């Protein structure tokens, strides 16, 4: 039997990691992306490599995934991270009361957590609210989303994967009741063509619903938008979180010379264009000011909104929906040769890729194990030298 050919739709973090996983297993992979790498939700994430601390009390399943992946990512792309850890800071008595539950949660999820003397925390973070009552250190880190994806893709290319950017899937092709390929339009040339495949993976993030709809399938993913406000100055060394259950504007991620405040949460119909609502931006600044009183003194550099692909079960509010991920084999919907991977965080992209690749290999009868946990990625710069414009 010839080597199976897999098409992955979407070059965000999930699609990039999946292309890498499958290429490393020796499969033929074509990644199709209608825009540029990470041009959807991935590009506009908070840049936070989660320790899991944020979810350890309310969503321990997601938290446990985060810390495992956090350690793996540190090993495979150590040069693409700002490794300055994170602080969970208590500002009120209620926050202080939450501390014990937080430390317990961290312990349960195996997240290393340690309380810093508040004087030391204030010394490390000179712009932190001087009224802070307690600070807990966790192994958060900061990445840059595009290079994160490029590193996976450059490595995938070295293993033979083909990346087609600015190429949009317009329809599915079928053979005998089974998906057999896709019809695409290359926006760079305006030309359309058919690409055959043994199996197709839908990794389109908040757009998985519209991709699956082309095959007449629905997936329980709700695009849920969030706003981030990027300041024109860096106010913190470490990632600062409010020591309380996740809510709006309770996290400030520093990156390079900026601080990024996030985030809010509301459901959107069309994830293509999401203007950042002015009231959300104002709320971010007001909330951010509680952690870092200097926030309002710094000019705003950018206001960004993007949709998370949250898997919604029952009638949970978006903020409470789990950040974990799920793999859908559309065989169950009567369509063979088509699977969807959705949900999750960018931190867990590699694990999502492993899960969907395992499923794909099982379906195709390929008995090769996942190796992405231990294989360091090549320089992201090689992506542009891999002839992807050819």
């Amino acid at each position: 039997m010839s080597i199976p050919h897999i098409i992955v739709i979407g070059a965000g973090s999930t699609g990039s990691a999946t292309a890498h996983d499958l290429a490393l297993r020796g499969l033929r992979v074509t990644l199709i992306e209608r825009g540029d790498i990470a041009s959807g939700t991935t590009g506009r994430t908070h840049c936070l490599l989660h320790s899991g601390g944020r979810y350890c009390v309310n969503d321990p399943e997601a938290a446990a995934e985060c810390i495992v992946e956090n350690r793996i990512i540190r090993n495979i792309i150590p040069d693409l991270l700002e490794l300055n850890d994170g602080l969970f800071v208590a500002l009120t008595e209620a926050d202080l009361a939450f501390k014990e539950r937080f430390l317990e949660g961290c312990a349960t999820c195996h997240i290393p957590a340690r309380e810093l003397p508040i004087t030391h925390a204030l010394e490390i973070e000179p712009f932190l609210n001087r009224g802070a009552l307690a600070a807990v250190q966790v192994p958060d880190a900061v990445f840059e989303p595009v290079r994160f994806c490029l590193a996976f893709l450059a490595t995938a290319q070295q293993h033979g994967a083909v990346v087609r950017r600015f190429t949009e899937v317009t329809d599915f092709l079928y053979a005998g009741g089974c998906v057999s390929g896709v019809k695409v339009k290359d926006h760079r040339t305006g030309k359309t063509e058919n690409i055959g495949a043994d199996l197709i993976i839908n990794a389109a993030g908040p757009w998985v619903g519209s991709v699956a709809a082309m095959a007449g399938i629905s997936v329980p993913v709700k695009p849920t938008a969030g706003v981030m406000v990027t300041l024109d100055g860096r106010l913190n060394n470490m990632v600062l979180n409010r020591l309380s259950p996740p809510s709006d504007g309770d996290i400030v991620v520093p990156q390079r010379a900026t601080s990024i405040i996030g985030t809010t949460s509301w459901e959107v119909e069309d994830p293509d264009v999401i203007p950042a609502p002015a009231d959300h931006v104002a709320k971010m600044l007001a909330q951010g000011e509680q952690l870092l009183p200097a926030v309002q003194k710094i000019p705003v550099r950018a206001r960004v909104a993007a949709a998370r692909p949250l898997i919604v079960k029952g009638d949970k509010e978006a903020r409470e929906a789990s950040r974990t991920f799920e793999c859908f084999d559309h065989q169950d919907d009567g369509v063979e040769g088509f699977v969807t991977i959705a949900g999750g965080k960018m931190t867990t992209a590699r694990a999502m890729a492993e899960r969907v690749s395992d499923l794909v290999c099982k379906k195709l009868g390929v008995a090769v194990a996942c190796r992405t946990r231990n294989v360091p990625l090549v320089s992201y710069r090689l992506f542009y030298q891999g002839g992807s414009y050819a």
Partner: protein
Amino acid sequence: MASLNYPRVRRAGRWFDLRRRRMGMWAYALNRITGIGLVVYLYLHLVILSQLPGGPGSWNAFVALARSPFFLTLDVVLIAGILIHGLNGLRIALTGFGIGVKAHKILFGIVMFIAVIALGVAAVLIYGG
């Protein structure tokens, strides 16, 4: 996929595309124009001097021509070129040695100021002499 790649000669024309460009670019273009001008002058100068072995007759005819107001004006242009190229060259040399890099715009202002003053003096001498 064919990409749009402009021919080299056309791209080289961007040396002098000063639209919306800033002071450093103007300094560079000025230096290049004066440099090319001075090389042209160097060879013109040698060609004119080649009349000297012909004896006093042709030389005197040339000197008479060279003292016409038109040629004196050309002399002023020549001196302007020398001053701009020479003084700006000094600025480039200094910044190349790591001196005044942050102040390269001020330096340009200073050398151009000196050039204008010196040109004024030269013009007075030329037209006055």
